[in-house]
Structures are given as structure tokens and as C-alpha cells.
């Protein structure tokens, strides 16, 4: 992506930067017209992510609508994340990784204990073992949301492919150090995430990875935007979205 492209990364327009450590959870609000770059700082990161319209949190990322609207089972550059109200929460304007998982779900306490053993806060302080489900519930609680709102999530940087018989396979090494994905927000969005390992991660040890977040003022989607024009479905979803801000 050349620097001259509309909405491309521009260091002079950066609003904030933040590192999210391995195994941590984070939430924040991204305004319409701002882009969030999520960077895999060490390689092998997983980011379990949920998205809500910040002005009406009943409107949220909808896995099924996102997939069937774009005839895809995974996400990459050119795709958008649909809400359950036929609108676009964010567009993927750049992606050096190539595949982000939409079907694997999140890890939970029982699974982490079974796979990696136990490491409590009492003995390990902030190196204790966390899991995706509890981490997301923890962040959701800050906004009056909870388990009921923990819908099917994204897993950035992870690849789960499906063979002709439907068998799911976690693909190791999908994301390298420095890989990134740019999410341009089309509405004010509550982003909730956990950097715990993917539930299908084949590694035998607890080893989540850190990520870097960089937000910048990119502007909204122009008329000739590749995400808007990727398919007729996306064009209609952008019309629905823009009516909300008309």
C-alpha cells in the first residue's frame, strides 16, 4: 500500500500508541474515521476481538452476516466486519498476514488448565495464566455487558482452515513478527480484546504474545474505496452505515 493511498498509514496523524502485553485484555473506543493498526510484535500472536457500536451496544459484530455477505470463512484486506444491523463496523484496509480466523471461538479456564496446567496469581503475579473467555467477560463488564454479549469473535493473526469433509485445522506460523492488520472504523466502536492464545493453538506450553496498537486519523471510506466496492453487499452495507450518520 503506497503512502499516497487514501487512509494509508501516516505517522503525522497518529493519535496514540500502546503495547498490550501477552495474555492481557484491553478495551477502548475507536471513532468513525480513525484506523487502528494491530501489530503482532513477536510473531505468533492471537487477538480474540469483539466489536460493538459504542452508541448502541446492542448492535455488534455478527460472524454469520460478515461471512455470508462476503462469501468467505476468514477475513483479510478488502473485507469488512458487519454488525447485526446490516452496517459496517470496520473495514480491513491493509493486512500483511493474509488470514484472520472467524470460527475458532475463545479459550476458557478449563481448557487452559487442561492444556497448560495451573499458574495462579498468588504464586505468579501478573504472569498467571489467563484465558480468552474470562478476559473478554472482564472487559465487557466495564460497559455493563457480560456473558450474554460474548458472541462469536474474531481471532486476528490466527488461521483455521477447513478441509472438504469439514475438519478444522490450526495452521501454525500464520503470523510473523511485524505482521499487521489495519481496521478503519466506520462507526464509533467499542473494541474489546484478549491476547490469550487461540483455543486451537497446538503449542504445548502457555505462551501468549504481545501486540502493539496504533490509532491514527485516516478519514472515512471514499467513493472508490476497495472495501466499499469489494462486492455489491458491501456497497449496500456502506449505504446503511452512512444513513446512520446522515
Amino acid at each position: 500500500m503506497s503512502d499516497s493511498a487514501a487512509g494509508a498509514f501516516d505517522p503525522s496523524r497518529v493519535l496514540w500508541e500502546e503495547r498490550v502485553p501477552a495474555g492481557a485484555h484491553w478495551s477502548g473506543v475507536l471513532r468513525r474515521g480513525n484506523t487502528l493498526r494491530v501489530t503482532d510484535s513477536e510473531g505468533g500472536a492471537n487477538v480474540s476481538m469483539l466489536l460493538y457500536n459504542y452508541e448502541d451496544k446492542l448492535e455488534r459484530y455478527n460472524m454469520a452476516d460478515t461471512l455470508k455477505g462476503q462469501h468467505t470463512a476468514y477475513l483479510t484486506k478488502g473485507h469488512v466486519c458487519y454488525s447485526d444491523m446490516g452496517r459496517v463496523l470496520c473495514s480491513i484496509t491493509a493486512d500483511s498476514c493474509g488470514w484472520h480466523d472467524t470460527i475458532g471461538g475463545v479459550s476458557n479456564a478449563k481448557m487452559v488448565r487442561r492444556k497448560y496446567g495451573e499458574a495462579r496469581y498468588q504464586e505468579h503475579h501478573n504472569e498467571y495464566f489467563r484465558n480468552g473467555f474470562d478476559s473478554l467477560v472482564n472487559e465487557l463488564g466495564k460497559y455493563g455487558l457480560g456473558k450474554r454479549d460474548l458472541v462469536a469473535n474474531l481471532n486476528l493473526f490466527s488461521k483455521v482452515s477447513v478441509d472438504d469433509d469439514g475438519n478444522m485445522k490450526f495452521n501454525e506460523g500464520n503470523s510473523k513478527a511485524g505482521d499487521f492488520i489495519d481496521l478503519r472504523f466506520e462507526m464509533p466502536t467499542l473494541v474489546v480484546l484478549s491476547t490469550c492464545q487461540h483455543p486451537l493453538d497446538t503449542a504445548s506450553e502457555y505462551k501468549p504474545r504481545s501486540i502493539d496498537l496504533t490509532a491514527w486519523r485516516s478519514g472515512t471510506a471514499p467513493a472508490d474505496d476497495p472495501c466499499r466496492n469489494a462486492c455489491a453487499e458491501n456497497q449496500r452495507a456502506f449505504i446503511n452505515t452512512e444513513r446512520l450518520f446522515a
Partner: protein
Amino acid sequence: MTSGLTESTLSVGDAAFREVVPAGEPFMKEITKGQTVRILDLEGNQAVDTLFYSARDPEERYDANNTIREQGNIYLTSGTILRSNEGNPMLTIIADTCGRHDTLGGACSAESNTVRYALEKRHMHSCRDSFLMALAEWDNGLSKRDLSSNINFFMNVPVTPEGGLTFEDGISEAGRYVELRAEMDVIVLISNCPQLNNPCNAYNPTPVEVLVWDS
């Protein structure tokens, strides 16, 4: 899951409950632990959008991701354990004469119809409308917030190794069914899909029958 077709051992004459659900209508009923529920595709190629909630604690509900991940396969068929958001078994598919069922395609809604087909399709009847009306009638505090990723019994949504996803013609026929044994007390919430714009119902939504046997 390999699509092993499994016939039921139950006799229709022994069913404790039978009800035909016309296309475009919701259905909601408590199924107690040990009971068996059958969904019967009366005329063929009908999509049956289905959600399950724990009857004791509706915050515990069917979870599509947990279900497919724990069996390592995206299709539901005989032997599939339907898991909750807490990871607990809710129901087990004990018979299936269709072969496989979808849980990635979700439910149609007025809003998703505008995106998928045309802005003017907003006013066509949809599964989410049926779900919302059923929840309103149930009157236990559940709302759109609680409409998570559902099962589409009899629906065919193949995913390719390259990551493509399409709605294909159904693989069900008249008389095919899926049967589930409840592993906890559950509320089943069905929308018998009214969709007219894609092949999930062969463009012709038709009735299904729900049967329940006591343990």
C-alpha cells in the same frame, strides 16, 4: 464429523408431543433432561434456525464456536454434542437422516436482507423477526442481545479449503429428520425460516414437525 446417517429407534406412535410448525413461524418449548426432540423436514430442503438456552439459567446457551471446535469439524451430525458458552453438553444428536447441518450461516434478518439482496428487501419476513416475537412472548428478559449464532438444521453451507463460504442447495428431502437427546433442561427456540431469496429453502419455505419423546 463423517456424515454417518443414523436412523432413530423411536416410534412416532410413542411421541409425547407433536406439532407442525408452518414456515415463517417461531416455536418455543422446554425440553427436559433425558427427553428426545426430533425435527422432521416434512417437504424437504427446509432450513430450521434453532437456538437452545439452559432452562435454569438462560445466560448459559448454545455456542456454535465451542460446538464445532470441540469436535474439530464445522458440520453437525450424529454424535455431535451441542455445547454451551460454558462448554457444557446441552444436547447430543443421536439420529440424523440428512447427513449434516450448518451452524455458521446464522439467521436472516430484515437488516441482513438489505445487505445480501437489495435495500428494498427490508420488509420481507425474517428469522430474527420470528425469534424476537417468541422472546417477547416468553417474557423472561431475553432480547436481541441473546440471539447468538444459531444452528440451521437441514441447511448446506460448505466451506472450502481456500476459505470460501457459500449457501448451496439443500441436501435434505421430505421425511428426513434430526433427533437430539437433552443433556440438561433446555428451552428450544426455532424459527422455521421464511427466506425466499436464496436456496436454503429451495425458494419455497415449507412446514416442519417437532416431536418429543419422554425418557
